[in-house]
Structures are given as C-alpha cells and as structure tokens.
C-alpha cells in the first residue's frame, strides 16, 4: 500500500523527464525570471543607497531561492478540478487509497523533478552570475531544507483546498488566480518582508503565506535565531495541520455533492 504512493510519486517524476525540450525551457524560464528580479533589486539599492537594513546580497539570495523554488512548487489545481467536473474522479475514488495522499504523492513527484532538473541548474547559473550569501550557520542549512519542505506542504494543502472548491463551483479559475497572486506577493518571494509596510506585515503574520518562503529564507539568512527558529517551524507545522483539516472537511462534504451523470 505504501509502495503505491511512492510508485505514483516516481511515475510523475519520470513523466517529467520524458520531455526534454520542456526541461530546457523550464531552466531558461527560471534563469530569466531570477535575472529580471535581481536587476530590479540592484536598481532599487543603487537609487536608495544603503538605507536598507538588509544587504543587497541577502536580497539577491532571497530572490534566487524563493523565486527559483516557487517555479518548482507550482501546484496543479486545474487537473483535479477537471477530474471532479468530468466525473473522471470516479477512477480515483474506486482505488483503496486516500485521495489527498495520491495528490500529495503526485505533487511530490512533480516538485522533485522540477527541483532537480529545472531549479538546480538555473540556481547554479544564477549563483555564479549574481553571487549568494552563505547560510547563517552550519545548522541553518538542514533547518532551511526542513522548513522549505514544510513550505511545500503548505502550498500543497492550499492547492488541495482550491481544487475541492470545484465540487461546488464549476470554474475555479478566479479562485486559483487570486490565490496565486496572493502567494506571489505575500509569501516573501517577490517582495521580501523587510520591504513590506507594517500594516501589511500585521496581516501577513496572521496568514498562511508567512509559512511559505519567508520561513525558510529567514533561517538561511540568519534573520531568526535560537528559539525563534523553532517557533517559526512550529508555526509552519500548525498551518499544515490546519489547512489539511480544512481540505479534508471539504473533501468529505464535496464527495456528498458529487454528481456523476452519464457513463
């Protein structure tokens, strides 16, 4: 049984590897995106001098990781929504597996492929071009990886919730678009938190967006230390649990709403 989830993750990963041109474009895409944002930050720093409390190097590091990885942590809400709408979800319901677990396995496979094959080369290229701050301490590196894994789970959980909306609404396009915009702006990838006004930070701190890229980045950059690292990780874990509970509730309610007509 456990093997089945691993197998699904493996199959999704291999599926990605089958398309070579896609991979090349993916690398190029990520490099361009990072380069443009680095150029913007360089211009901002040049015009404001050293007014900022955080160095240009740290801001570039944030851009490299957060924007680069956000390209890999892209969830596929529409394919699940399509399954629900067309009734193709019948096939998944007829398997003795947990549906959310199957989606998680597929998401892990896809993210794994994108991290290895698209993000990693793009990251190396950009690090050589633009430079990079070292992790704050030796311990910061493994904690960063752990925290980034939890960021993935937060995004996966939000994605599940979005997909399940299609049990009620035919078209989830607007929901997903709003969510994606919110993640871009509020997760700390495109606008690091040290540039955000206080009133906005008050909102962000109470939202799950804070548990996405800012959590691991603040560990790498040494913006949090000691017990506040643990506090940040615990907060991420809590968000994962809360969002998963919410997704599970929607799944249980949505399944009762499911109507599969014809065929």
């Amino acid at each position, binding site marked *: *049984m456990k093997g089945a989830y691993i*197998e699904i993750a493996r*199959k999704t990963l291999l*599926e990605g590897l089958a398309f070579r041109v896609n991979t090349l474009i993916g690398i190029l895409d990520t490099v361009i995106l990072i380069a443009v944002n680095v150029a913007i930050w360089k211009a901002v720093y040049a015009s404001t001098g050293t007014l900022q409390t955080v160095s240009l190097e740290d801001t570039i590091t944030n851009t490299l990781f957060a924007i680069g990885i956000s390209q890999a942590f892209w969830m596929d809400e529409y394919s699940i929504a399509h399954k629900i709408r067309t009734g193709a979800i019948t096939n998944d319901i*007829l398997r*003795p*597996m947990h549906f959310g677990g199957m989606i998680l396995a597929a998401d892990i496979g896809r993210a794994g492929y994108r991290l290895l094959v698209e993000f990693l080369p793009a990251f190396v290229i950009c690090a050589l071009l633009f430079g990079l701050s070292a992790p704050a301490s030796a311990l910061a590196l493994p904690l960063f990886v752990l925290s980034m894994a939890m960021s993935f789970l937060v995004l996966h959980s939000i994605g599940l919730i979005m997909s399940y909306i299609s049990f009620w609404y035919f078209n989830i396009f607007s929901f997903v678009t709003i969510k994606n915009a919110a993640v871009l702006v509020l997760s700390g990838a495109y606008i690091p938190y040290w540039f955000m006004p206080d009133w906005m930070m008050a909102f962000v701190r109470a939202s799950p967006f804070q548990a996405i890229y800012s959590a691991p980045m603040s560990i790498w950059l040494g913006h949090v230390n000691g017990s506040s690292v643990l506090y940040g990780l615990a907060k991420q874990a809590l968000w994962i649990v809360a969002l998963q509970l919410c997704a599970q509730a929607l799944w249980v309610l949505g399944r009762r709403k499911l109507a*599969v007509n014809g065929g």
Partner: protein
Amino acid sequence: MAILELTEACKTYRIVQRQDGISGALKNLFVPRYRDIQAVKRISFAIEAGEMVGFIGPNGAGKSTTIKLLTGVLVPTSGRVQVLGLSPFKDRKRYVGRIGVVFGQRTQLWWDLPVSDTFDLLRKIYGVPPQTYRRNLELFDDILGLADFRHQLARQLSLGQRMRADIAAALLHDPELVFLDEPTIGLDIVAKDKIRGFMQHINAERGVTMLLTSHDMQDMERTCQRVIVIDKGALLYDGSVSGLASLSGSRRSLIVDFNVHTRCEPISGTELIQENALRARFSFDRGSMQVHELVSQVAKKYDIADMTIEEPSIESVVKTIFSAQQARL
C-alpha cells in the same frame, strides 16, 4: 446469504434550471432556480454470492447511477446500500479493495503508460501477492489475449483491446464482486464473444459474483441467469432471463434480402410488415411458427442473398413490460 443489498435506495440530483435569454441569465445569477432529478427511485434488490446478474434498461434509466451507489462513488439520497457487510460510501477505502469495477465508457488505464505499467501500479495499490499476480496474468493472456498488446501505450489500443485490458485490470486483485457497466459497448461480435466467455469463466471457475449492465439483450441471454430491468429510475422486473423473454412477447421478425427484385407473396402464419424490391420483413410468432420451417419455405420460393432474425431490443422489451404493468394496475 445476500452479499449485496439495496433497500429503498433513492438518488436525487439537484441541477440549476437555466432560463432563456439575457434576462433569464441575469435572473439566474441572483436567484438560481433548482430542479430535482430523481435518477433512482426506491430501488430494492439483493444479490447472493456467486450469482451473475444482468442489469438492463434504456438510456437514462438509472443503471449507471445505481452502479455508482453500489460502488461507493455516490451517496444515496435516502435508503440503504449494504455490500459485503460494508457501507460502500462510508467505508470506501476498505470496500473498494474487495471489488472490481469496469466502466465501459471510461477507461481506468493510465493513458500515457503501457498497459503493463498500469498493471504494475495496480499490483502495488491492491497489494497483490506475486504468485496471484503471475497466475492472473497468465489467465488473462490465455483467455483475453492480452500478451499481444500488454506493452503498448493505453492510448494506442483499439477499443476492443482497451476493453479487454480494462476488464483484466479490474480483476487483477481477485475481487469477490465485480461490477461491469456496459462492458461490450461499441464492440464487434468477435470481441463481444471473447468478453462474454471470459466473464462466464470467471463467474463459474472462481465463484466471483457479477453484476453487469448492458444494452445488448444477447449479452444477457448468453451470460446471465437472472436479470433486473429498470426504467426511469424504478424497478420493472427482477427474475430469470427466460421469464423476461416470455414477458417480452414471442414475436420476432425475419428479414430477407433478395438477389433480384422480388414481389413476395404472403406466407401463412406470418405477416408481411415491410416490403421493397430487395428486402422483405416478416413478423411471426415464435410460439406457433418454427423458425427453420419459415426459413426453408422462404428459401425454396425465392433467390435469397441473406436472412436475419431480429430479436426485440431492450427498449421494446421495456415498453412491453411497462404496458403490461400498467394494464395490471
């Protein structure tokens, strides 16, 4: 003991009633009007272990909805569904591991993978022991001829091959109970025969209980001992196949195609219901007229290219049963 029990099961879909025109669309936006559609109305039946039961009805009769209630895909609006001692909807994960399901119109094969990869994944999902897996694959190769295309991508298969692969996929884990929804839809006679033979083999040799829906009366006559007929969501008939045949009336049609333009003369005991230069259609009663007698009479008189005997369609059977019931009321 019954392993499948449906008690007064109902399924109602609520759909938005669209209104015409721009004003209608606007009205809909603010005050949507709903309409309830009763797909299944208080259906009850039970199936014993080892039975092979046909489930028939015209399009939109509620067959697929009933199958989806029985497989745990849908939750009944009211009534009780109890299969293998479980509630299919509530105990979904435990339940679906013990059944097999084929939807003829919807493949369960992974579209971009070779069939063998799908089988491999299913083996892991259901935790099929290696020797069972090997034994089943051999059997499927034997009877369904899977070996020819097991390594092809699912999307490159012909309809007949895909259906055979789908049926094999549903039986890989030795389910106790198998649901087949239109397993022969769109297939030619040879492919249909292969699939019927396989279903009979699995039912007879392994004692697997089967419920199959079909549009094809011959599917029922060839494979099932018992049939359940539904129409418009309600149960019309539950009994033996021969009982259904007698209910459906004994009138058959003989269609004769001629080699040359022919004018037919009436034959006693039959009724000439349609005639043109190259084709004639005689209606006769199977009870009072022997088929071979009629055939030889026609063959002696005319120069014949082809002859076919037409069985009543499911639609006409349902109509006959329905009007018989109305008459009784």
